[in-house]
């Protein structure tokens, strides 16, 4: 197809008809929930996250009602402890993180000029997991069964089953399930940013929002797994009585605090950086110029991400750590101010250099920067250890974290709401109501949280359901309560504004005259995402490339048609966005929802100790996943190449390092390896905590023999899989089948030998933290051996069924990648449990 062809309106019309038909949303009361297009899933995601936020906000209001006056008896401690635990947990896990992912699922394909993200069904799976897990965790309070140990769930209060009930299990298992969906979304977003950019959009031309998504998604990848490792240990202790955190049996409560905060501190930046990303989109629009200092802000974002992993100990300043580490972590915590200040001043400089168009979104951005700056400055204060010894666990910290999170997450999201509402609905929100809501919110947040700085220093610890009158904290608390309700009124005005939106007239396309790709979206929502995928030459193509919008709309760029009736998008190279292939995207299906519900049932049934049913759930989950992969992935196309316009022909099948599927596997396994390293950290942490480790009575441990057998067998399985891959690429299906069978047997042998070590030496995991952590590492690695067997069997079946050939080899390449990580965990596990006791 040449430019010339697109001059024909009839052709364009026919193309549009085909695209419209291919991308049409499924209709019908039931079928419409099978949709997996990013605009539908993203919208459900955002709406669900918003409802969870409102719910958690009401919990906050109930707390403020109880604390309005001293010695109040409105709400007793049992309910109150559930209120603050759920308020914090929901705002963090069910609002802040998923909301960023939800917004990104909507915006990212638009920003990248892609038709959709690379794995639409994975997005749908993530959404259904999120919905189910969120209702499970949030709904628990209606049955008086909500977790009540505070959102960081410190053991032993939460691990001792005589001190805490089912709520703790609901927290651990329900939120672990949601963490799975968060990681699924992170995989989707990273691959989307790296592989689905339009031709020509080199990394340094990427919209800043995409940069931030990349940074934040990578942070999720490394931050959530340590928490999952902690969750595993935590539930092992609660359900099986394995004493990881029980000091009387060699455990240590501080291990949880480390694992939690290795997650918990990056989490703060995970929820804050996306807001900066929103600013980075809307500030240039309203300053009517390019953002100043693009490389600076990218470096600052990356720097913040790096530093944020080195700060976790500042949440543990009062646990009696050595002073040297206090000094180090104080300094590191202060250092993170610098990239943050760079980002803020980039915005100030951009506004200064530009011609400011004062608008409602900019008003919200301004207000949130103001609130955030105050929270940031009190953050500098609490990072100084001696001050933190006073402020820690008091209302001062409550004030600090709410200034940071409201200024750094909630208000920026409202700014984004007012900015992007026309993009989603085609209509603007009301300026009048928006500004009214802003001023109510701004007054509310300061009236609620500023007095808390004082009440904290004047002796009010956090998480108290009452306080004595003699402390004279009544007035400060009354002010806070009034502020909280004022804030809620502001949120109500915003809700009203959104409800009135359907009655308002349509706005123009690109109503703010922005310069970035997402504003190509049509007011009359077309589900195809973008009419044709453009060639990008600048950071603000709508401003800089003449006739850009018209050319996109007339299909004068790439892939303007869907002649085979398939959903497609272009895959490009990671650094310089050279077009590599056209991939076929997932279409609406039940399988993502079913997989989410099957997986959810495993977590939920385990919570209620229904292990038999949970096992059935696991088998169902596995069946769903296999069905999903078998029918929906690595499909062999009907023809090898496809023209995408301008004389370019791209392959329709891609495997190995340039394929999105390979990247997804790689990223998932990075998360898996990080969780594993959390468990290994546990082993060596216990070693540092004990004079003799393994303890004398257990000095033999699993011995070295069986672990070494397991290690060797695991290595053999890995080598045989590598050999099978090269046999497959030579077209030797028979040899491949033989080698894969050998690999499966070796993996089975590795698992059996792994279990034999601790089993034959009679290590009792309930006796002490040492056998418990040895068993945990072993079970983790054996479970991966089991996964390896399943994957090898799957690949074998694909080969025998003719769904995998020498040229179409994505399956075996991805499984080989899994095996690289598998052999790594085999070596680390068995060297640790088998050899380390010999040398230590």
């Amino acid at each position: 197809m040449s430019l010339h062809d697109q001059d024909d309106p009839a052709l364009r019309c026919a193309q549009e008809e085909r695209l419209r038909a291919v991308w049409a949303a499924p209709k019908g009361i039931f079928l419409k929930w099978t949709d997996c297009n990013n605009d539908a899933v993203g919208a459900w995601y955002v709406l669900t996250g918003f409802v969870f936020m409102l719910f958690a906000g009401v919990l906050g209001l109930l707390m403020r009602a109880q604390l309005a006056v001293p010695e109040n008896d409105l709400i007793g401690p049992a309910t109150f402890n559930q209120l603050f635990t759920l308020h914090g947990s929901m705002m963090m896990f069910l609002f802040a993180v998923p909301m960023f992912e939800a917004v990104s699922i909507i915006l990212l394909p638009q920003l990248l000029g892609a038709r959709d993200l690379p794995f639409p069904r994975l997005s749908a799976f993530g959404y259904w997991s999120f919905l189910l897990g969120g209702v499970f965790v949030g709904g628990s309070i209606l049955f008086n069964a909500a977790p009540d140990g505070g959102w960081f769930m410190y053991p032993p209060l939460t691990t001792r089953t005589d001190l805490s009930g089912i709520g703790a299990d609901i927290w651990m298992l329900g939120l672990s399930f949601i963490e799975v969906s968060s990681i699924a979304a992170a995989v989707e977003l990273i691959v989307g940013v790296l592989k689905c950019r339009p031709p020509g959009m080199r990394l340094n031309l990427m919209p800043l929002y995409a940069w931030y998504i990349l940074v934040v998604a990578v942070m999720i990848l490394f931050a959530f797994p340590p928490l999952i490792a902690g969750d595993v240990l935590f539930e092992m202790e609660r359900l099986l009585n394995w004493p990881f955190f029980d000091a009387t049996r060699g455990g240590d409560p501080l291990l949880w605090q480390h694992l939690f905060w290795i997650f918990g501190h990056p989490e703060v930046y995970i929820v804050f950086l996306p807001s900066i990303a929103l600013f980075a989109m809307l500030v240039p629009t309203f300053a009517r110029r390019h953002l100043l200092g693009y490389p600076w802000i990218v470096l600052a974002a990356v720097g913040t991400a790096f530093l944020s992993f080195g700060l976790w100990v500042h949440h543990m300043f009062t646990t009696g750590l050595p002073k040297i580490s206090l000094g180090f972590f104080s300094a590191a915590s202060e250092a993170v101010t610098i990239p943050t200040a760079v980002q803020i001043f980039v915005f100030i400089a951009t506004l200064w250099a530009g011609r400011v168009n004062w608008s409602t979104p900019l008003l919200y951005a301004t207000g949130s920067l103001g609130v955030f700056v105050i929270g940031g400055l009190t953050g500098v204060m609490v990072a100084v250890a001696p001050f933190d010894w006073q402020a820690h666990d008091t209302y001062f910290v409550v004030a600090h974290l709410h200034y940071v999170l409201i200024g750094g997450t909630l208000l920026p999201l409202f700014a984004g709401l007012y900015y992007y509402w026309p993009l989603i609905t085609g209509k603007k929100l009301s300026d009048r109501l928006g500004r009214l809501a802003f001023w109510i919110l701004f007054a509310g947040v300061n009236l609620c949280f500023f007095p808390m700085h004082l009440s904290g220093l004047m002796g009010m610890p956090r998480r108290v359901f009452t306080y004595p009158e003699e402390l004279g904290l009544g007035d400060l608390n009354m002010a806070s309560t009034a502020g909280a309700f004022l804030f809620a009124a502001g949120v109500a005005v915003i809700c009203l504004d959104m409800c009135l939106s359907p009655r308002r007239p349509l706005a123009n396309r690109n109503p703010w005259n922005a310069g970035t790709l997402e504003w190509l979206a049509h007011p009359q929502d077309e589900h195809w995402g973008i009419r044709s995928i453009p060639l990008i030459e600048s950071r603000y193509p709508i401003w800089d490339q003449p006739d850009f919008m018209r050319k996109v709309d007339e299909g004068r760029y790439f892939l303007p048609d869907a002649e085979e009736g398939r959903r497609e998008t272009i895959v490009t190279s990671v650094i310089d966005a050279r077009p590599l292939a056209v991939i076929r995207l997932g279409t609406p299906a039940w399988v993502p929802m079913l997989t989410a519900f099957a997986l959810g049932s495993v977590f939920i049934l385990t919570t209620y100790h229904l292990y038999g049913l949970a096992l059935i759930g696991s088998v169902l989950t596995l069946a769903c996943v296999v069905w999903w992969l078998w029918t929906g992935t690595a499909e062999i196309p009907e023809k090898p190449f496809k023209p995408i316009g301008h004389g370019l022909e791209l392959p329709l099948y891609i495997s190995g390092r340039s394929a999105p599927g390979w990247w997804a596997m790689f990223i998932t396994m990075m998360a898996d390896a990080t969780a594993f390293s959390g468990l290994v950290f546990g082993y060596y942490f216990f070693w540092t905590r004990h004079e003799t480790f393994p303890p004398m009575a257990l000095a033999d441990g699993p011995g070295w023999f069986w672990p070494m057998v397991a290690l060797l067998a695991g290595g053999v399985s890995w080598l045989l899989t590598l050999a099978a891959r090269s046999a497959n690429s030579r077209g030797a299906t028979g040899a491949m089948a033989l080698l894969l069978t050998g690999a499966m047997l070796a993996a089975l042998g590795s698992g059996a030998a792994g279990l034999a070590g601790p089993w034959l030496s009679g290590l009792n995991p309930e006796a002490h933290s040492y056998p418990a952590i040895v068993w945990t590492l072993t079970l983790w690695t054996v479970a991966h051996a089991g996964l390896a067997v399943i994957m090898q069997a799957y690949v074998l079946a694909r080969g025998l069924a003719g769904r995998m050939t020498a040229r179409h080899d994505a399956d075996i390449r991805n499984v080989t990648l899994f095996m690289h990580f598998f052999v790594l965990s085999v070596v680390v596990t068995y060297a640790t449990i088998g050899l380390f006791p010999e040398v230590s």
Partner: protein
Amino acid sequence: MRYAILLACLLAAACNTHQSALAPFGVEAGETRTLTLVMALAALGLAAITFALYFRAVRAPEGSLSHKGGMKLVLWMGAIVPTVLLAGLLLYALPAMRPMDSAPGDLEIRVEGEQFWWRVIYNPQDTQGRLVDANEIRIPTGRTVVFTLAAHDVVHSFWIPGLAGKMDMIPGRENRLVVKATKPGRYRGVCAELCGLAHALMAFEVVAMEPVAFDSWLAEQRTGTAAPPKDSRGARLFAREGCGACHAIRGTEHTGQIGPDLTRYAHRRSLGAGTLEPTLTNTAAFIRAPQDLKPGARMPTYTDLSREEALAIARYLKGRE
């Protein structure tokens, strides 16, 4: 300015002097208050400067800042100024991270957090001078005191805002907190780490005494002048109900270690670890149904005791018989 006015009003309106980091009676808390004020003022100043620059930026006509000028602004305000300020802050604050020096002869007090009260042991290493008490801590002014902090059940945190920063009590670990009180008086400390249902009702009284008065008080306690209880109705009921299985009273056969030591109950200024006034009626009510007054309290209920019997035990504990 708005904040400064708000701050002043609030400070004037509500001030307690016995449980506040802003009303120090110890060396460390005093230094921390100075640090707090310095940092708070600096923070207000920095916030004001940032906001002023922001409003200048919004109002500035187009092109009033060149690209080069803008990058200079980012470099200076975003990188150089914060680096210098933070380095200064660290140099100023790091010395305060060093624990206060203590010498071998200093008074040692071991405090153990329990759900939901405090076990206090003076001179825990010294079998002669060892003294067990609960929910009240007495310290001499002007002398260094070493707290050893521990817990058995869950994590608690030991916080006397007027004296020093808080320190956690973690099962399986022992933490040290070295303090020096400067002003005699009665103060209050609380548990600062969520420890269960009655976390909000887990406080204790701190009495800072002139050194001489403290020495004679401690000597008096050691020599056991705490009068041996009379053979009264309350004493008999106390024994009959098995109170001594959990509570100790020095000089009697009651040596339970599970609950707070009650030897000095008559002298305490609170009941239920800072929950209530220790009046006779409150004490009797607490004995019969502790959870009604302190939800989550671990003491079992004694509703089979009549009000009158409970009152007799209360009288016995208060030394009124």
